[in-house]
């Protein structure tokens, strides 16, 4: 029968992969990761070294070195650049993200728990969230001026939609039986919320938070492009204005690193909090 033979084959396959020694598998994984990157950077470096300097693509090593110089080259640089620019961007992002996330979770939970609320609010949400958040920046500028506060509010606004929708879906996905369990054992509403509903919705909420973090970075950069006096985005635009390609690439690298750090951080947190979810899914 095809049925059993396929399963037998699959079982054989899993046996085959798991019997190869663990360190060998780890080595292969690392190789897959490092080699392609090394190849690309290597080619890029070679090409730019051999050719007459191509203005738009500086040598990768030079980019890295420059970024280091810019941020940590001297104590003054650390003060002005690292703290003054880099952390400014990070700070805005983090604050806007936090505010937007809290708002999103609160409203999303309300929508997820009560069908009436969800159906009433949903059309408004669907409409508002299809307005590109970046397009609302001029509005925010007119309303709140060009300062730091405006930027934080702007980021919070853009971020909240992702969190809200994912929270609403996540809360709604908590199985009715679990809610019944809470009621049957006469657990208070507050405890039901924090010990059953929110943990149950956490996988989806977290997915929303991850998307929101990407959005926060994006919105921070956009706001700095359009109107800023500091921040990484601002530095990038400044460098562009002065046709300083090396600086531009350095700042772009800084942004990429920032995005990577945020992503990795969230993945790590997710692994800690949602370990149960991943393990149970793999079982299913």
């Amino acid at each position, binding site marked *: 029968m*095809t049925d059993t033979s396929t399963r037998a084959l699959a079982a054989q396959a899993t046996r085959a992969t798991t019997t190869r020694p663990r360190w060998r598998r780890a080595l292969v994984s690392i190789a897959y990761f490092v*080699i392609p990157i090394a190849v690309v950077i290597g080619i890029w470096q070679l090409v730019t070294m051999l050719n007459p300097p191509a203005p738009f693509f500086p040598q990768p090593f030079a980019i890295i070195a420059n970024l280091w110089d810019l941020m940590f080259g001297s104590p003054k640089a650390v003060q002005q650049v690292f703290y003054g620019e880099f952390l400014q961007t990070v700070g805005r992002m983090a604050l806007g993200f936090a505010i937007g996330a809290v708002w999103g979770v609160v409203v999303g939970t309300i929508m997820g728990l009560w069908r*009436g609320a969800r159906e*009433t609010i949903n059309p408004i949400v669907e409409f508002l969230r299809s307005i590109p958040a970046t397009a609302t920046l001029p*509005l925010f500028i*007119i309303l709140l001026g060009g300062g730091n506060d405006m930027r934080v509010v702007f980021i919070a606004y853009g971020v909240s939609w992702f969190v809200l929708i994912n929270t609403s879906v996540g809360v709604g996905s908590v199985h009715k039986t679990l809610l019944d369990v809470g009621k049957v054992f006469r657990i208070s509403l507050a405890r039901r919320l924090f010990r059953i509903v929110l943990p149950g919705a956490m996988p989806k909420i977290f997915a929303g938070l991850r998307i929101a973090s*990407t959005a926060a970075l994006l919105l921070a950069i956009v706001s700095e492009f359009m109107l800023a006096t500091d921040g990484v985005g601002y530095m*990038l*635009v400044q460098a562009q204005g002065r046709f300083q390609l090396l600086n531009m690439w350095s700042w772009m690298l800084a942004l990429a690193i920032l995005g990577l750090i945020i992503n990795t951080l969230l993945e790590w947190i997710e692994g800690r909090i949602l370990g149960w979810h991943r393990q149970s899914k793999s079982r299913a």
Partner: protein
Amino acid sequence: MTTTAAPRQTRRSPRVGAIWRGVAGVAGLAIILEIVSRSGIVDQKYLPPFSSVIVRAFTLWGDETFRADVGATLLTYLLGLLISIVIAVPLGALFGLFNPVYRAARALIELMRPIPPVALIPLVLLMLGNGLEMKLVIVVFAAVWPIMFNTLYGVHDVDPLAKDMARSFGIRGFGVIRRIVVPSAAPFIITGIRISSSIALIVVITVELIAGGAQGIGAFISREKGSYVDVGETYLSVLAATIMAGIIGLAINLLIGWVERRYFGWESTARDGV
């Protein structure tokens, strides 16, 4: 991986109730906004009456430049989406079918993905100037990912039993791909396209907004921003244009969603929000 059947049609009466509540919600909000604005609780400059905004949003369509701008944005959006599909689907299929290739490319993908497409604007602006190519580069860079990953996912997770079944009927190689893999992966690809569509539109408008330039909804907003002496008028205009952008985006999203449900509704486990 388990597959779930497409959700059954909900009973009539709850659906109608939902519609009524939704309408009530919108109407309620509109009324509140109108009252708050006209009564002067919030300065009318900053919160124009809801009715005025709606009127302005629709009279925008009478403005020839606005229409031209909308057209330009939509054109850029469509081109960007098309190019993204052409690049992402074969790539995603390649990665889905051949795991070693995917693993080799993975490092590069994971490095490129976190780069906010917007961050590339200054560089690409310098390289390509302020035209269609520049916008397309940014849009495509942003929009390929959802399609690629969803295609990968769809191709990778084709039920092996289905493939076995086809082979047992004598279908080989490309035939299996054409008749089993492609239809099986299609719903995922469409979902990826839907996600990419909203990303593409947002990115186009953002690029127009930031990079200036002559055409596009973003450019329109950017122009309006500085064109009126009276702050209130400016605000009204920008607000109306922004809302219009939202309506257009919503309409497109609903359209694709409808196509997705109508023609590809049998499979509802495609990943949303990659």
